[in-house]
């Protein structure tokens, strides 16, 4: 039986035309058109959505981007927190997983 492809090759993407975002004091109110739901995102979760809106990124790339953009150390922004947040954003439909190579 073939092994499942490693999740690390998975890239994430988001279509900025599908949502409206307004910032209030480092918190972002995001209205997602397809679901009609509104989400409260903090700087990290919105930063991740925003990052993948300009082009697909892998989990590792998102992690590196967030640490750079927000001047955070590996200790301050652990890999697990990014993975968990990706999962939450995926569940809300705000980001979409793409297969490797797409």
């Amino acid at each position: 039986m073939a092994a499942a492809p490693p999740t690390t090759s998975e890239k994430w993407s988001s279509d900025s035309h599908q949502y409206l975002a307004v910032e209030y004091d480092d918190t972002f109110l995001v209205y997602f058109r397809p679901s009609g739901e509104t989400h409260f995102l903090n700087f990290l979760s919105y930063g991740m959505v925003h990052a993948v809106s300009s082009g697909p990124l892998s989990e590792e790339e998102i992690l590196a981007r967030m640490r750079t953009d927000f001047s955070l150390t590996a200790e301050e922004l652990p890999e697990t927190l990014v993975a968990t947040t990706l999962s939450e954003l995926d569940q809300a439909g705000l980001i979409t997983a793409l297969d490797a190579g797409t």
Partner: protein
Amino acid sequence: MTEKPIVPDTSDSESETSEDSRIAERRQLLMLGAAGLPMMLTLKASAQQALVSQLTCSITLPKRVRILVDCDGRAWVGTRNIQYKNGKGFKVADIVKFKDKATYAFPAGDVPNYWLPDNCPIEECSNDDDDDDDDFDYETASAELDDLMRTSLPSQADGIALASIRMGDDDDDDDCDEDWIDSGYAFYKLSKNSTILPVDHTSGTGWSPQANKQGLFIALSLVYESRHGDAPGWPGISCIVSIINYFGTQN
């Protein structure tokens, strides 16, 4: 001792402090996140939104849909195609087959006026099976003869035409072709997997089918529902019924 006035600090150090403060808050937030605090919250749909969600259903056609409409507002719904040629019209044999194989047939008056054919009534060729001359149209022949007489010198071809008029032969000047028909029918095509959003054909309080082929599908869906309820068979009928029920709760 005089109290020192509080003077707002407009120096760069304030913005630096503000930025430092923001970074500190972010770090604290991340610590909470690492401890399990969600990084996002979702506002759940309200009861009103749940109700209106009945309007958001869509219909995806599992097969292509073809709808043939005649001048009396009859409709036949199927999947076959009907050949059409510019200048000739629809192939009569295809129309006959389409009607014969139609999945649904709607009686006269079921199709709203907008979707009726432009060219009505049906102009059918006369069948001359009795070998008499009753298909000779004296008025047409006379008019054609007048046209020929107005020309200076009729050519040989004109003479042949004149002869054919006299003999009552069908010279096709009347465009009558028993195999093709260019009036009396309109044919609408909806592709397989095409999506129809019934809510686009409502006015908020009732149905208002748009003036397009999707609107015709909705109009026929409503006729189907009025006769068969939500009985399966018509694509997307449950979606139509859910919206009808929604309107029922509003009125």
